[in-house]
């Protein structure tokens, strides 16, 4: 916040390029504070001597440009913009004795502190990662013998565990006959087999219901299974290019017919 406070546009080509590259990079920022830090660095001064007013201006300009380029900025960027606009007015206008809350200078100082702290943490992170690291620069024992622990492992299992385990298996067992019982299931493979044999005769549109196996209409469970598999099988045959399928409206009967124009 010094001399170049009011030198509105000393936009050199380089500055503009820098600003534009910022905008292009907007996705690369980790939030507004990161964007501010990047902008602050373009001032090429010690972060402690940063002009927050200039920074606010840079940031608002950055947001404006993003808008002009129809780049959608996340809400937090806009919140920051609003806050910086407020800060800017606080810094520019003579202090209003009526107004409560911290002064513009205090706010600016805190923002500068945040930027400096973020930068400091980034530097610290870089220094940390630059250290010699275990498994990369220095190594632990490759062949640890340590685990010759005499582990007296006591396995805990209670009678309850045992009984519940047994009950679990036995009851599962009871249902196995059902699993085996495929009487009510008409598989898609079966449906495919059946239809493959029949489509040769389907020169004209035929309701797929007529392809369902005999005797599967009465029992609702069997009918459902057969309908589903027959439908799935007809889709498969359509995919193979052997059938055409149509349905005139929702819930209307589904028709299939043999495909004749083998155009491939």
């Amino acid at each position, binding site marked *: 916040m010094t001399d170049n406070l009011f030198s509105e546009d000393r936009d050199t080509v380089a500055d503009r390029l820098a600003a534009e590259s910022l905008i292009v990079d907007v996705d690369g920022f980790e939030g507004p504070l990161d964007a501010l830090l990047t902008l602050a660095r373009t001032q090429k001064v010690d972060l402690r001597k940063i002009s927050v007013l200039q920074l606010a201006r840079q940031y608002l300009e950055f947001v404006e440009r993003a808008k002009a380029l129809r780049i959608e900025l996340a809400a937090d960027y806009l919140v920051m913009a609003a806050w910086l606009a407020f800060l800017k007015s606080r810094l520019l206008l003579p202090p209003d004795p009526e107004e409560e809350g911290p002064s513009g200078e205090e706010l600016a100082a805190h923002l500068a502190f945040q930027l400096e702290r973020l930068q400091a943490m980034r530097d610290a992170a870089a220094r940390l990662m630059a250290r010699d690291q275990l498994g990369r620069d220095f*190594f*632990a*024992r*490759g*062949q640890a*013998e*340590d685990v*010759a*622990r*005499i*582990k*007296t*492992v*006591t*396995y*805990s*299992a*209670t*009678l*309850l*565990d*045992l*009984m*519940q*385990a*047994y*009950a*679990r*298996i*036995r*009851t*599962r*067992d*009871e*249902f*196995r*006959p*059902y*699993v085996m*019982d495929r009487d009510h299931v008409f598989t898609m493979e079966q449906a495919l087999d059946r239809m493959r044999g029949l489509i040769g005769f389907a020169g004209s549109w035929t309701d797929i219901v007529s392809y369902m196996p005999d005797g599967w209409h009465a029992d609702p*469970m069997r009918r459902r299974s057969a309908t589903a598999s027959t439908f799935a099988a007809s889709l498969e045959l359509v995919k193979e290019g052997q059938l055409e399928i149509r349905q005139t409206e929702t819930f209307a009967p589904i028709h299939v017919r043999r495909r004749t124009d083998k155009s491939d």
Partner: protein
Amino acid sequence: MTEDPRDETPPDSLFEAPPLAEQERMVEAVLFASADPVSVRDLEARMPHGSDPVQALELLRRRYEGRGVRVVQVGEAWAIRTAPELGFLMQKETVETRKLSRAAIETLAIVSYHQPCTRAEIEEIRGVSVSRGTIDQLLEMDWIRLGRRRMTPGRPVTFVVTPQFLDHFGLESARDLPGLKELRAAGLLENRPPPGAMPMGEEQSGEDDDQSELFEEEE
């Protein structure tokens, strides 16, 4: 680093091997960090050109004589190993209580309810194959042991529970184990996993066709 009198070789020479003391350090680091014993050839490949790993190894071996660890030859390769008489330090007696795996407890349950019982029978009842490890574990725990061979083709071995098993579970005999009806009456079968929370059948071998959903394997 000053142990070696031959340390005079210029350290920045690109083509000369590092001083022997330095080579010894290298061998030490490599043997330490490597998961497997390292062959002389491997050492040679890793160390700067012109190094003499055999000589460095010999120095290192001697350095560790009488120490807590030693440099030993393992086949054609070399390794650092703790001195055998200090092995007792590496043992740490810990008593760990672990829950028996589900496979183990189920296998045990089947053996206890169906003994003598072959592995094939266990698998049939569980519906999945039983790993050797599971059986071994139970054998090792002395909870099951081998029973008589079944007089069927292949003469498969059978398993029965042991007195230790009975002791552990506080049973007089395996016949005292409650049947399914009792288990159900005691409310032990209620925490069944979904889906289709189904009625607990008794021992009857299932012609119930009232279960309209496939029973899903848990886990």
